[in-house]
């Protein structure tokens, strides 16, 4: 049985979303196991190249989790991430990739429940969309 399990790469900022994910974990909240999280210092550090590379290497979805507007530890990183995500979604759509495969969410360190909810929702969205079928072997090792 090969039921499709979405692979989601989560870029989570150290100060908010990653701590939120951590809280969800230590509080033993139940959530889909589909997100592979990567801790970054700030969502502003997430270059669009990272996101495209994640897709190119086989991710079916990419989640960016950062601090709420006004709360970014580095003042403006999350606004930058927001602008990039707007560009990326438009660009993905033009290339025939459903923009819902990229999601950006503001999750504070105390919002473990929100993190769990976002992960569950996104997993179901991607499950419904199906696999992206991008898997570039040469890039995985690059």
């Amino acid at each position, binding site marked *: 049985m090969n039921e499709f399990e979405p692979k989601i790469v989560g870029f989570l900022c150290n100060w908010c979303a990653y701590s939120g994910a951590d809280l969800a974990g230590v509080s033993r909240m139940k959530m889909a196991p589909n997100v592979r999280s990567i801790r970054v210092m700030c969502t502003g550090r997430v*270059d*669009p*190249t990272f*996101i*495209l*590379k994640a*897709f*190119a290497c086989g991710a079916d979805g990419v989640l960016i989790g950062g601090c709420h*507007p006004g709360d970014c530890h580095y003042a*403006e990183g999350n*606004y*930058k991430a*927001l*602008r*990039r995500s*707007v*560009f*990326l979604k*438009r*660009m993905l759509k*033009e*290339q*025939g*990739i459903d923009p819902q495969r990229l999601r950006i969410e503001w999750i504070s360190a105390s919002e473990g429940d929100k993190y769990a909810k976002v992960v569950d929702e996104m997993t179901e969205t991607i499950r419904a969309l199906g696999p992206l*079928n*991008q*898997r*570039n072997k040469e*890039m995985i090792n690059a």
Partner: protein
Amino acid sequence: MSKPKLALYWAASCGGCEIAVLDIEEKILEVDANFEIVFWPCVMDPKYKDVQAMPDKSIDLCLFNGGIRTSENKKMAELLREKSQVLVAFGSCAHEGCIPGLANLYSKDSLFKRVYKETPTTENSDGVYPQPVTKVPEGELEIPEFQEKLVPLSAVVPVDYTIPGCPPQPHQIWAVLEHIIQGKALPPQGSVLGAGLKTCCDECPRTREEKKIKRFYRPHEIIPNETQCLLDQGIVCCGPATRSGCGGLCVKVGIPCRGCYGAAPESPDQGAKMMAALSSVIDSQDPDEIEQIVNSVADPVGTFYRFSLAGSMLGRNRK
């Protein structure tokens, strides 16, 4: 001693790369004096079988321009790889797909429908489409098969070097040829030749200040100020994401960089880099306004990936 053998070939390209070689002007005579040109369909008339008859690796240098779109392109790429010691992806098409690569945004079927049926100047009431094999009374006719998508040269055969540009600038072409004529050692395999190691911005004479953009302009919507950075003025310029090498030809005359030298050395995906660059200059924190400003960029894929879609991260392994 016999002269080194040189071959030039064109696959899915516009012919501009061939003209660029001739644009080295009288130096073309030196090319002729120093190389034996064994194959160059644009200017002489050898046949496929002549190349086939050459011993393997007998061509010293092959400059291959054009992307791989048809079965014939692929066959020629494989043949020339076999016969050449050094195979160079010459120009943007062979390097990253260039303009013909933008067709990858559409399926083969929809391209055929558009080209052979829908264009206003086309009269095709019988719905005739090109077929790889056609039966006629005299027998069977074959034409190369149009493949599902265009891929760069490196996707079908190993490539030794790349000379980027649409087309590569004549002085850069000459610099590479002169290097070889003088018998200097070749750089490490895989190097990009005839281009810089920075971005087009680094060659741009305009002054840069802090950028705060409320809307983006297309070149015809604004008359640019002569000395200020074009991006500072809201004109979408691909300079930040594009490899240097052209000498800033466009930006010097007030035209934004279109990105023809391809992805910059440090950032392999030109579009990703453009999105990062433009996101940094948008002056807004309001989601709706950001959306509006982003939407003022017409055709982001065609603008950011104008020359590199087929070689881009997502484009490279599209089905």
